């Protein structure tokens, strides 16, 4: 059946995997959604938001919530257009490219934010495993780019310094 937006990515929590193993119903739903038969608004209601993964405070907890093991460090994950210093923590540009074959999803995690996970993206075949977005950082922190490829997890990180801008008033 190939990939769909929701199969095999971070979006899948334990329940969903069970559903998938059980076959039938869920697979049909994703195919229907992927084919656009459900209009947005209908389909989005069926989309998952992994609450547990967005409430974690460490990489371990996050991996657990995502249902994955210890990620291997990889030089095939690269940050681009990601500054070493943020002039303001309210908007920090982050770009991640994964050269890991069969990349299925990319997540951005901020070690010292109140909750570590900032965003996760599922990358279906045909979409380049490379994207950029902007996140908030409360303070100077390590930023992790976590990639799931062919069922395995890979990670790289860099520190971004957050500075106090302006006149300080």
């Amino acid at each position, binding site marked *: 059946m190939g990939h769909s937006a929701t199969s095999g990515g971070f979006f899948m929590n334990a329940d969903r995997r069970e559903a998938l193993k059980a076959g039938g119903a869920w697979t049909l739903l994703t195919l229907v959604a992927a084919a656009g038969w459900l209009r947005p608004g209908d389909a989005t209601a069926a989309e998952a938001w992994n609450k547990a993964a967005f409430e974690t405070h*460490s990489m371990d907890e996050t991996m657990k919530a995502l249902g994955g093991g210890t990620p291997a460090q990889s030089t095939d994950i690269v940050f681009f257009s990601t*500054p*070493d210093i943020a*002039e303001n923590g*309210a908007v920090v540009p982050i770009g991640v490219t994964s050269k890991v074959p069969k990349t299925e999803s990319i997540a951005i995690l901020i070690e010292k934010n109140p909750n570590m996970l900032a965003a996760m993206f599922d990358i279906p075949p045909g979409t380049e495993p490379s994207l950029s977005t902007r996140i908030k950082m409360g303070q100077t922190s390590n930023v992790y780019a976590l990639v799931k490829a062919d069922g395995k997890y890979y990670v790289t990180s860099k520190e971004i310094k957050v500075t106090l801008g*302006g006149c300080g008033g």
Partner: protein
Amino acid sequence: MPSTMRRRLAALASASALALVFGGAFAQSTEEGIAQYREALQDGNPAELWEARGEEMWKKPRGPKQVSFAACDLGLGPGVVKGAYAQMPRYFPDANRVMDLETRLLWCMVHQQGYTEADATKIKFGDGGSKRSDYEALGAYVASQSRGVKMNVPLDEPHVRDMFHLGERMFFFRGGTHDFACATCHGDDGKRIRLQDLPNLSKVEGARKAYTTWPAYRVSQGEVRTFQWRLNDCFRQQRFPELEFGSDASIALTAYLAGRANGAEYNGPAIKR
């Protein structure tokens, strides 16, 4: 597993930090880091969301008289937006006054659309959230229509010229508890406050570089800020009383800075920290 894993990741992080230092491909200094940051922000400017909102506002009938801004003359004829911001502030005979963009918008709202001045100035500046100012949306739209146009404030016009000179004196006026003038922070080359480079607005190059970026989306505030806001907040930090919206002093100082920027290509609305 938890703590070992955390430690391993920390080790990875410091290893990659070392790689950064010795790799040499990344920022060598704070300045370069900040430059990278600013560069990365250029990819997408939320000011476009304000521009879209402002364009809709400009074209729709509004106010008690249900009149659109098609009747509003920004100096180049009723409803003409293209290039208008690059020639403001300017003298408007119908109001017998030099006006900047925001003051002119207010004039059109009151004299053409039938708003009371109190209604039209209820929200001068937004808060980045549900409190939204029409001036910020309209300002972003009108200014965006001067992108690529050379600044050409009509300084030969006697009223504008007079305001320019008054604005120049104002720029150097020291006062308040801290003895600050605009020139305190913006009168020298190559200085910065904290990590922010300070344009030397007493020189043509500095005025050109700075003025042509406003209005701007401020990421720290999640809001588009107009030049009226920029001046208002500078004076707050100068420890002055509050500069009134649309006041002559606000227009005189704008005339000085915009006039000094003449000849430079307008390039806003920009995105800033």
